[in-house]
């Protein structure tokens, strides 16, 4: 291995070209990253067991809010997607929709062993084993379940990474969209589609690369059709309230 080989491979940031020449641009970027790391909103979505350790971490004893982190109900305004534990296939579809709705930059933290390798449910027919296959994960907090101290330590690590400009998993989703889409299609079926146009967003963020498109995105374009009105199977045959 030569000296110039770096592992893990650092993803080049879009602002880095301008950094060398323009001092103002560099200072502005660093300031933005610092401010961003001090004001994080966690999406209020509890996918599994690990969610039980979040109330202690958020409330008075461990108090996440002293770090500037607080829960947020809407994915559009949230920065962090916490995957707290195992994700069943049904949940993962919602998680993918939620992830694509979140505005960039966005960060994903996988809490609990189940997001790392399937954990306790490694042989279950219903769960997705590695979260990394379906969306880029910035940080894993292992344990079943991790203690609130571990959650806080993980979040501080994420804050450091953001301030240093290293938490760039979201860029990977646009750069290698074909890979992630392929894994999603393998799990959800070939007709899987979301209302978000990830390819157009990749162009918007200037992250469109050679691996953004591929045979899986071709398959997506082939199957793609306008979304139909939500079928909720909640017509007139819904249970009537029993008069008592």
């Amino acid at each position, binding site marked *: 291995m030569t000296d110039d080989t770096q592992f893990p491979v650092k993803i080049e940031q879009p602002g880095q070209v301008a950094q060398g020449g323009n001092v103002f641009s560099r200072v502005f970027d660093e300031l933005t990253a610092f401010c961003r790391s001090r004001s994080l909103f966690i999406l209020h979505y509890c996918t599994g067991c690990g969610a039980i350790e979040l109330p202690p971490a958020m409330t008075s004893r461990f108090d996440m809010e002293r770090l500037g982190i607080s829960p947020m109900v809407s994915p559009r305004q949230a920065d962090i997607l916490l995957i707290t534990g195992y994700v069943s296939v049904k949940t993962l579809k919602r998680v993918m929709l939620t992830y694509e709705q979140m505005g960039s930059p966005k960060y994903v933290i996988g809490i609990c062993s189940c997001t790392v390798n399937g954990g306790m449910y490694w042989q279950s027919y219903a769960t997705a084993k590695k979260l990394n296959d379906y969306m880029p994960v910035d940080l894993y907090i292992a344990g079943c379940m991790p203690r609130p101290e571990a959650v806080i330590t993980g979040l501080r690590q994420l804050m450091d990474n953001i301030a240093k400009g290293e938490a760039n998993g979201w860029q990977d989703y646009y750069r290698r969209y074909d890979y992630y889409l392929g894994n999603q299609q393998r799990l959800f079926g070939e007709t899987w589609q979301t209302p978000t146009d990830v390819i157009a967003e990749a162009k918007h963020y200037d992250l469109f690369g050679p691996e953004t498109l591929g045979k899986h995105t071709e398959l997506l374009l082939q199957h793609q059709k306008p979304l139909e009105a939500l079928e909720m199977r909640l017509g007139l045959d819904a249970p009537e309230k029993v008069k*008592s």
Partner: protein
Amino acid sequence: MRAENYEARNHPPSNEFEINFGPNHPGIEGNYALKVKVHGDEIVAARADGGYLHRGFEKLMEQRLWIQNIALVPRICVPDPAPMEVAYSMAVEQLCGLDVPVRAQWLRVLQLELSRVAAHLFTFGGHAATTGMYTPMFWGVADRDLLLDLFEELTGGRVYSIYNIPGGVRRDVPDGFLERLSTTLDYIDSRLPDYDNLLFTNQVFVTRAKGTGPITQAQALDWGVTGPNLRATGLAFDVRRDDPYLVYDELDFDIPTEQPGDAWARTLVRRNELLQSIRILRQIIDRLPGVAGPIRAPIPNPLAWRVPAGEAYVRIESSKGELGWYVVSDGSEKPHRVHVRGPSSMHAVQVLEHLVTGCRIEDVAQIMFSLDACPPEVDR
């Protein structure tokens, strides 16, 4: 976003809207969803939508050794995991004809009641939060954490303790544990007047919770409602007293009941049950030092343990209601069939669907928390 995906479609004119209430919703408990049809803010139809937490427990357990399943079972119900491992261990003991030492039975009751106090604190904190009062939730979570510290000291785990094995429990109480338990119980006892002032006599809470989501006693019996939700309709049924297991028949406690069966009554029953659990724990503190003996019955090599063929049904009272375990063995190293009769699946599907129909949309979260349904146990 693709604009063509959002083109206007022709719908018949209607004042009714269908809304997905969950799974990504701050008012829903855990990862669960309700599909509701609203007219204004009144709900005209509702359909429960579970399955987000399905892991296939009953199938997974058939693929693991009897002893390995002990680590798996507490994961069925996250806020109240202790009854799961106790009931599973009791079912295996029933199959093997194992006699559990008396001291182990006392320790199991200690664990069960600690878990019940923790779960109830969590629940009525959650119910308060759904009515817009966050202070009781903060207090409930903080007070529950004191109990989790005790759990950690006793069993080594904060939430999932994995303290039981078929034949007994894994370890004895540490030195000075009972004194620390007594101190914590005194503290929680002294906090209850504060909870009463803040929540149970608070006009905001009383006005919103009284009369919301009522169940009559006949309906409750028809639908298989158990636990505090049944006792809130006036029927004093508790497995601990009516079908005693472990050493509950030697303990002195009351069964709190309330008449109206609405959200307020259900949460009040939990608050009163918490007092009774503290009373039970105080009796354990007094009597446990007088119970000598081993904490575990000898079991064969657990990695090659063939449990005799047969079937066993065990029921115990968890904090959510009656919990039943049906275990079938064909004489091999793994269970042949396992079925869990969880209390929450009755509460969170048919009862919830019925109760939210006709109520207003802001009360959905409140009704769900007052039923104390546990979504991971609904889906399993």
